[in-house]
């Protein structure tokens, strides 16, 4: 019996670890409560899953800092979630409270995640997060698009 208990316990712990959602998923979950319960009013929250090979999931969050007093804290929590999930920074630029960052994380089976955070001085901001299979050319296009946005 003892010989069975140990592998079973190991299996249970492994399953429990796999079942744990990422910090970023937990961050999204707080918006899944009803409007009256949620302290944050995002201007846009988009969660989409795709069956295509290229992109499997897309999350987009826009918060208007003028309408949401806690917007700054939300974006700081979001950054902490990205750090806790071990997203690797590609580049970041910050001036005052305004900042832009592009990050990514390698997953299993060449599944990658890319995240981009753009926050203005008034704490208004845009965050998007893509899960999918990205080639170097795809990443270059995303980076070029962001540079264009930044220069504007």
């Amino acid at each position, binding site marked *: 019996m003892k010989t069975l208990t140990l592998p079973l316990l190991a299996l249970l712990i492994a399953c429990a670890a796999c079942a744990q959602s990422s910090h970023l998923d937990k961050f999204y979950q707080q918006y899944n409560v009803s409007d009256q319960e949620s302290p944050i009013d995002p201007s846009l929250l988009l969660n989409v899953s795709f069956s295509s090979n290229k992109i499997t999931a897309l999350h987009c969050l826009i918060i208007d800092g003028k309408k949401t007093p806690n917007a700054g804290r939300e974006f700081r929590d979001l950054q902490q979630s990205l750090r806790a999930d071990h997203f690797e*920074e590609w580049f*970041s630029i*910050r001036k*005052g409270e305004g900042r832009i960052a592009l990050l*990514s994380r390698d997953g299993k089976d060449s599944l990658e995640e890319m995240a981009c955070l753009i926050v203005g001085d008034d704490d208004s901001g845009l965050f998007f997060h893509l899960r999918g299979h990205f080639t170097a050319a795809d990443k*270059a296009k995303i980076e070029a698009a962001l540079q264009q946005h930044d220069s504007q």
Partner: protein
Amino acid sequence: MKRILLILTIAITATSAFAQDDAIGRFFGKYIDDPRFTVVSVSPRMFRLMSKINWDTIPSDLKQTVSRLQSFRVLSTETTPGVFFREALTRIDRKEYEELITVRGNKDNFRFMIRATGNTIHELLMIAAAEDGFTLMSFVGDIDLDKISRLAADMDIKGMENLKNAKRK
């Protein structure tokens, strides 16, 4: 015994190399979230990607310069430039960094330092305090001073014009 000594020597050498990187890293880390500072950080991963992009409009030598870079960091502020300049200087281990150029005027103070092994420059560090602010900038990688100064000129980074025609002793 000899083996232990060898391992110990390697460990100490490696630790001191990382410790120096940490000194500058800690300076960046200390002010990275400070709203008084403007921070730019480009990671090795970004440079790896940039080296793979097929750039038709960029001169090949410039592309080569970028492909040899590993990281690029800038920290700048308009607040108390002299104070931050002195703080940055105290954090640098003079045994690791070789002073390349010093420019000192009435109101400006520029220091260019390099970290090198033999003829290979691994890091170029600029510490600058001028009337309008303090800037700390670090290029890490396989560095060609002439090409880096051209790259910096294209990026319009103040102070980097002092690097033009710089040669190691």
